[in-house]
């Protein structure tokens, strides 16, 4: 509790400082952006969309290493296109959304990977389990709009997503791909 309060204060302070300094801060367009996690059921790719998430992105192609990204995803918003399935996936065996309402990604470093490609290192936390990941991101600049695209393959078992009878990966595979398309308008924060 204390730690999270401290973190909150730090974030608030940082935000205030950035606002005061007028740091370029991208405004994510939620309607145009999407985060989709694709699982494989008996080899059938099944898409589910996280309909609620927030993101703070600050990225300047001239100074890529100074950039940062932070995502908070509401796991209960995972939409498989079926109410009953959505409820189930929010449940204890899968996301356990009551105990762990959000999944987060916090970048720690951005490295150019040639052209408009970048490798974004950071910590991905799902269901209270953290993993260090490197996310390949392609950035396209369209006027004042920045578009970030990429796909991150993960193992659901590393995050305890799918426990009990779902631990068996013969029906739902361990490999899950998180695909994102983030549209952000560069804006003075």
């Amino acid at each position, binding site marked *: 509790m204390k730690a999270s309060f401290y973190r909150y204060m730090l974030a608030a302070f940082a935000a205030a400082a950035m606002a005061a300094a007028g740091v370029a801060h991208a405004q994510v367009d939620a309607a145009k952006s999407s985060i989709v996690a694709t699982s494989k*059921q*008996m*080899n*059938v*790719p*099944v*898409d589910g969309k996280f309909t609620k998430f927030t993101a703070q992105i600050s990225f300047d192609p001239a100074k890529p290493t100074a950039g940062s990204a932070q995502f908070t995803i509401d796991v209960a918003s995972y939409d498989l*296109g*079926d109410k*009953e*399935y959505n*409820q*189930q996936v929010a449940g204890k065996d899968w996301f356990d959304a009551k105990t762990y309402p959000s999944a987060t990604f916090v970048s720690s470093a951005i490295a150019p990977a040639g052209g408009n490609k970048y490798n974004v290192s950071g910590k991905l936390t799902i269901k209270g389990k953290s993993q260090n990941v490197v996310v390949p991101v392609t950035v396209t600049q369209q006027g004042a709009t920045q578009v970030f695209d990429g796909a991150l393959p993960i193992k659901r078992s590393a995050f305890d997503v799918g426990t009990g*009878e*779902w631990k*068996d990966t*013969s*029906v*739902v595979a361990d490999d899950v791909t998180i695909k994102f398309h983030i549209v952000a308008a560069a804006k003075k924060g």
Partner: protein
Amino acid sequence: MLAMQTKRQPSFATPNGYTRIAIAFHWAIALLIVSGFTIGWIMTRIPGFTPEKLRYFSWHKWIGVTAFALALARILWRLTHEAPPLPPGMSAWQRTAANAVHGLLYLLMIAVPVTGYLYSSAANVPVVYLGLIPLPRIIDPNPEWKAILKTAHITLDYGLGVLVLAHVAAALKHQWIDRDKLLARMIPFLK
């Protein structure tokens, strides 16, 4: 020697019999219809979702795709190979009913898997045949079409179920009441 030869099933249609291919189509599709219907019945009664349910859904779809392919081939075979005539003892209305049921059975052999496949596409779950071959998604995910196709698929399933029961009942009537040996045309060892 000669007797044995005359006993052998001909591979082409005779006035009183179906071709061996037609018999094979009939029983293969009969088995697929019964198993597909049974698995469909069981899987849709499992609440929420469980590994078994997902497995059954996949099996159900594989059965449907197989049945569809066989039904197409069967119809092609039927169009190029005349079926033996109905037994002479049947009245006009019975002939009409028999022809209507057979026609509708062929129609639903196609319509049931097609609506199921489209329902799967509309629900954004593509079909990967036998877990190996990804089949094309014919229509885009669409919640409205998903609801319509679900209803259509289920309604046609029950329609097919009723027709199959009528078909079986008629065959048994021919066997036990009319005793016209009609069933032996489809079950050669009954002879």
